[in-house]
């Protein structure tokens, strides 16, 4: 009985699926496979980016993080916040406490006065987080604290996007996909999901940011550095994670080999014959 019911149920689902399949196939034969501007013209291969933090033994390049921080402070921070990051954690970039205090004090923090309970503006303290950024234009520039974890491709995506602006769209794109024409006030960037991005090209000229360590501030270098910095803002635990992981694996390999030998021992006289 149960088998008859089950076979009937199975056939019911099968017929329902065949029905969907048939109607969908007819539709597909009319429409063809989906074809969008992003499919056809988007850059699906990101530009390669090698960072010191890559790989199982990766560590941050502190000088690069400091340069990336300078790019963030001078360029990105006009529109984008990094509100998950605390000033105190900048010591991980190699700044000493006096420098961190000065960086924090340059910011204005709106915080509750603990004695009166009023919201007041005051200079930042190392314990504060980076403040929210009020953006006057249209749109909502995303917070960048986690951006390299929040996008496929991570740092390479950020780097590709920053250096991937094109002056004009391919003529074929506009011809085949008139809807994908870059609207007024937006910019064509094949690395962006729908090809047209509201962000003005942020890094445009060599030397836009002055590096204190003498590294030539080319657009490419600045894009790399800020990508590296954003890896740090997203994963400040990265170095400790890698170190702990190496210990973990090393110790477990040792224990597992011992445990395997012990297993062979225990079973030695049970293996038959």
């Amino acid at each position: 009985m149960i088998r008859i019911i089950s076979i009937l149920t199975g056939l019911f689902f099968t017929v329902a699926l065949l029905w969907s399949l048939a109607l969908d196939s007819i539709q597909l034969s009319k429409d063809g496979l989906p074809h969008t501007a992003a499919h056809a013209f988007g850059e699906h291969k990101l530009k390669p980016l090698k960072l010191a933090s890559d790989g199982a033994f990766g560590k941050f390049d502190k000088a690069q993080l400091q340069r990336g921080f300078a790019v963030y402070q001078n360029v990105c921070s006009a529109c984008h916040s990094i509100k998950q990051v605390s000033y105190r954690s900048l010591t991980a970039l190699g700044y000493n406490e006096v420098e961190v205090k000065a960086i924090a004090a340059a910011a204005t923090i709106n915080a509750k006065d603990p004695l009166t309970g009023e919201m007041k503006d005051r200079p930042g303290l190392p314990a504060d987080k980076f403040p929210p950024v009020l953006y006057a234009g249209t749109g909502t520039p995303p917070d960048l604290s986690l951006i390299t974890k929040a996008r496929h491709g991570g740092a390479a995506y950020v780097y590709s996007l920053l250096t991937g602006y094109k002056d004009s769209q391919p003529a074929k794109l506009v011809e085949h996909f008139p809807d994908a024409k870059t609207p007024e006030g937006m910019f064509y960037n094949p690395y962006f999901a729908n090809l047209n991005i509201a962000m003005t090209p942020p890094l445009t000229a060599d030397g836009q940011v002055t590096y204190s360590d003498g590294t030539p501030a080319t657009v490419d270098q600045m894009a790399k550095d800020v990508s590296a910095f954003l890896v740090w803002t997203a994963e400040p635990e990265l170095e400790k994670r890698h170190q702990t992981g190496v210990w973990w694996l090393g110790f477990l390999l040792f224990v597992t080999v011992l445990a395997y030998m012990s297993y062979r021992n225990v079973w030695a006289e049970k293996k038959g014959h």
Partner: protein
Amino acid sequence: MSFPWAKEYKPSHPFMVWMDEKLPLPRLVYNAVGGGYEVPRNINYLWNFGFLAGLCLVIQIVTGVVLAMHFGGDTRVAFDSTEHIMRDVNWGWMLRYGHANGAAAFFAVIYMHIFRGFYYGSYKAPREMIWLLGVVIFLLMMATAFMGYVLPWGQMSYWAAQVITGLFSAIPLIGDPLKEWLLGGFAPDNATLNRFFSLHFLLPFVILGVVILHVWSLHIPGSSNPTGVEVKTESDTVPFYPYFVAKDGWTIGVFMIVYGMFVFFMPNALGHPDNYIPANPMQTPAHIVPEWYFWPFYAILRSFTQNFLIFDAKLLGVMAMFAAILVWFFLPWLDKSPVRSATYRPLYRKFFWVLVIDVLILGYLGGAPAEQPYVLISQLATMYYFLHFLVIVPIVSSIERPDPLPFSITEAVLGHDRAAASDAQG
């Protein structure tokens, strides 16, 4: 229960004697995972996944309890408190990555455990109850994992809550009120997050309870084995301690190495980037998918695209998705073959491997965008999935001619079995 030759617990120390009289907990442990539990000597490494699943449950409960000490179950702070754990709490990043990847590890292990059952017929009499409880555990795991995924209140969390509770709205008449009841509102919000946090904390302990029942019912007939032939004599078994403690022990090491590679070196490889964007009820991500362990079921859900008879497409998809798991409950009665192990079932074995490939395809499609040609392929794959359990398994089990079985486990291992042979003669 145990086999007549199983060793009895005999405490020697006066304290243990005293303890055994008052609370025979050591005796219980001895009989469950100690020298008193006799296990078929021929079980292979696929039998290790049950023990590993138990380990995963412990990892999840321990890391989960400590994470709950730092997490704020409120939509205003959930995302930031998760980042607080990652950045400020001592070892918080390890606990959180360990918990997130621990869920994935748990499902990976449980899928191996389930498919072991499919292949070796572990669900068959006299082990139906073990199987039924196992399916209950799996359903509870799915609910727990889903609610846990909602907690960080990222984009994927929010839209997972929206979509999964939306499944219930497919039910005729009571669907919409049921959805509002589940959410505590018209859309996922603070009430939803709070109740999911509460239930996400509770359900693992319910799972633990059902796991105890699962193991209890396992100890009545004892473990199955790759031949599917029941234990006959003492030479068929070895005690759990030390033999399987040693075997499970070193595979725990292997498991921990693989798990550690994810936690420490690619902690986000299995997650979706969009969940690092705070929840935004006004904007759906371009491509919403659940975590990988739900992909096969998600593909089944999405493969019903057209209304059929009186059923609309949405209801069909939801019915099929739940049916995909519910059919497992009936498996012991759908598969009437007296032979358990696929090793001796040439026809079933072929269909088993087709099922494996089919589920892998469904898994791939569940992670792909809902567009052609993926939808067509998932319709075919879903069709095979149901045909396998509901049509092929019952029919194959009636018409198949199994290969000859070994006389006993000992014979399968050693090639001869003097004790069993003399038993048979006597």
